[in-house]
């Protein structure tokens, strides 16, 4: 049972203001993912929670207890590092038992806990081995095992899957999720991979330049991004952006540039009222574009020319020129198209996003 609260947290290295006024509340049993590009302050935030980095200002609380000045060992946390950080001179068993030995658990209890953890992770056969005799995935499991034997209040993960190859990463991702469901320990997970963030997180924190951009459930962030950065960061392939001018004709709002002219749906139009005759950034996700059919209204379609075709099997990605912009559409794999074909696309009007060009905030 542990809640983590981060209040007005700041970290300044000599010149760099790495973490700026971060406020986060992490609920008991929640799996919170911090995601962002490198240098966004996510790892620094995690290291401050761990006690490995001093806090410039602000407070960190675990269960209403301020832990700012507690040494790492007294915070009752466990951390899994990107490079596993297994103790190379100890066997797997000793690696997992180290934390318990330091805490003076008795021998039988240690053996039982290590056995239990090894069973959960399927590494019972490896207990006598040294870390260098293990594969990447096995090392990752040992690192996890070392964290779970202690039954800590909070798990901290610092990009634990980044050193694994793509296939193993997907597999370990699923196992991590299962493990969390089984143990129910509060977890903070740092990654730069938005897919990991979306799949693992109960909630996701998107950070950039030391600032929290948005906090929310994965789909909430995906469907209702708070700003241009979040919209562009989550989702693969990324959201398409186009600069459009808003104008009013016949009582309706239109978003237009050299390549397209779209009628803005009435429910969004209200919010766009203040931006008439000015430029805004329009965003639409690749899967919200489709090849237009006769049923699609003309005011939601535009012409595009195919530049690149990426056949992924389950879908086809079309990189297309739309006026001055490039857009990616994810379309049905049964559609037969060729490079340089001209195509009429239609978009799903409910899934249009508009962002203020200057502040980058959603409109």
């Amino acid at each position, binding site marked *: 049972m542990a809640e983590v609260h981060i209040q007005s947290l700041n970290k300044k290295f000599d010149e760099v203001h790495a973490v700026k006024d971060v406020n986060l509340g992490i609920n008991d049993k929640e799996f919170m993912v911090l995601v962002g590009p490198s240098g966004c302050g996510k790892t620094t935030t995690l290291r401050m929670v761990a006690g490995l980095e001093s806090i410039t200002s602000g407070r960190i609380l675990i269960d209403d207890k301020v832990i700012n000045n507690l040494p790492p060992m007294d915070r009752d946390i466990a951390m899994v*590092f990107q490079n596993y950080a297994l103790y*190379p001179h100890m066997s797997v068993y000793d690696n997992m038992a180290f934390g318990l030995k330091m805490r003076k658990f008795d021998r039988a209890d240690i053996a039982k806990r290590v056995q239990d953890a090894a069973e959960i992770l399927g590494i019972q056969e490896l207990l006598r081995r040294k870390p260098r005799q293990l594969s990447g995935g096995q090392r990752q499991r040992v690192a996890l095992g070392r964290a779970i034997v202690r039954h800590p209040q909070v798990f901290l993960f610092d990009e634990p899957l980044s050193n694994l190859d793509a296939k193993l990463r997907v597999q370990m991702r699923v196992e991590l999720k299962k493990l969390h469901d089984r143990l129910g320990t509060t977890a903070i997970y740092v990654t730069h991979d938005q897919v990991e963030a979306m799949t693992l997180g109960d909630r996701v924190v998107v950070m950039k330049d030391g600032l929290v951009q948005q906090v929310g459930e994965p789909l909430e962030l995906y469907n209702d991004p708070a700003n241009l950065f979040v919209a562009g960061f989550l989702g693969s392939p990324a959201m398409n952006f186009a600069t459009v001018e808003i104008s009013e004709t016949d009582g309706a709002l239109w978003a237009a540039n050299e390549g397209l002219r779209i009628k803005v749906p009435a429910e969004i139009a209200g919010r766009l009222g203040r931006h008439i005759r000015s430029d805004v950034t329009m965003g639409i996700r690749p899967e919200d574009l489709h090849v237009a059919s006769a049923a699609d209204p003309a005011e939601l379609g535009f012409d595009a020319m195919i530049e690149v075709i990426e056949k992924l099997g389950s879908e086809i990605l079309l990189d297309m020129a739309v006026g001055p912009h490039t857009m990616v559409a994810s379309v049905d794999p049964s559609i037969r198209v060729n490079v340089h074909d001209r195509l009429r696309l239609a978009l799903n009007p409910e899934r249009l996003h508009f962002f203020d060009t200057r502040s980058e905030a959603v409109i």
Partner: protein
Amino acid sequence: MVEGALWRRWVFFYIPLTAFVVSLLFPFYWMLVTTVRPDSELYRPWNAPNYAPFWTTHPTLVHIRDLLTETLFSTWMLNTMIISIAATAISLFCGLLAGYALSRLKFPFAGSLGTVIFITYLVPQTLLFIPLADIIRNFRLGDSPWALILTYPTFLIPFCTWLMMGYFKSIPKELEECARIDGATRWKAMVYIIFPIAVPGILSAGIFAFTLSWNEFLYALVFLSSPEQKTVPVGVTSELIRGDVFYWGELMAGALLGSIPVAFVYSFFVEHYVASLTGSVKG
């Protein structure tokens, strides 16, 4: 390994290698031959009909016997051993802690302190012995093993510190961070995690420090005067060279016996530290 034709392998690999090994080992061979050569052969003129400088037909152990019975050689060995071990232990201990602090702890002037320590290593011994001699006299340590046990660290500690600093920097700091989260204090993390991983580095620092103190000549020559206090390098050269009389047989016997402990330390530990170097910090 050189690729290609057989002649290339010979010209670029075997022949240079053989020349290198022979020229390196020849002094040791010369030492050995001179040790077991009887005096009658040693001082035979080069133009004598049976002159054979590179081997002997009548090997003898008389020089070794003379060395052990007629000189204080065994005392010198003991002195050297005590002094080297004590100086190495002091230097390793200080070097370990200093190296750890300089590579891991953040404190003001950590970087410049490292450089300053390195600079002290650059001060030549031939300069340093003058003020040191004064200090030794003031503390009345002259002509005792303490004179050397306490002065050898002046060059051994900077050396060990730098070697250990480099080694500690190669150990990922996550290992220690993980240990500290696991429940170890900084001290425990150092003792249980960092030092065991640094064993190859500690061994090599120890070997070098031991060899440097074993072979040290200048301080031993200056600070020790009575024969029963001397170390092997000084004892052999000062007691077995009388004016212009060189007791070559005993000199070489002393050199031979004196190099055995160093050779032993090397051959024993080198394997250990090479073996552990190859698979230490990975993972």
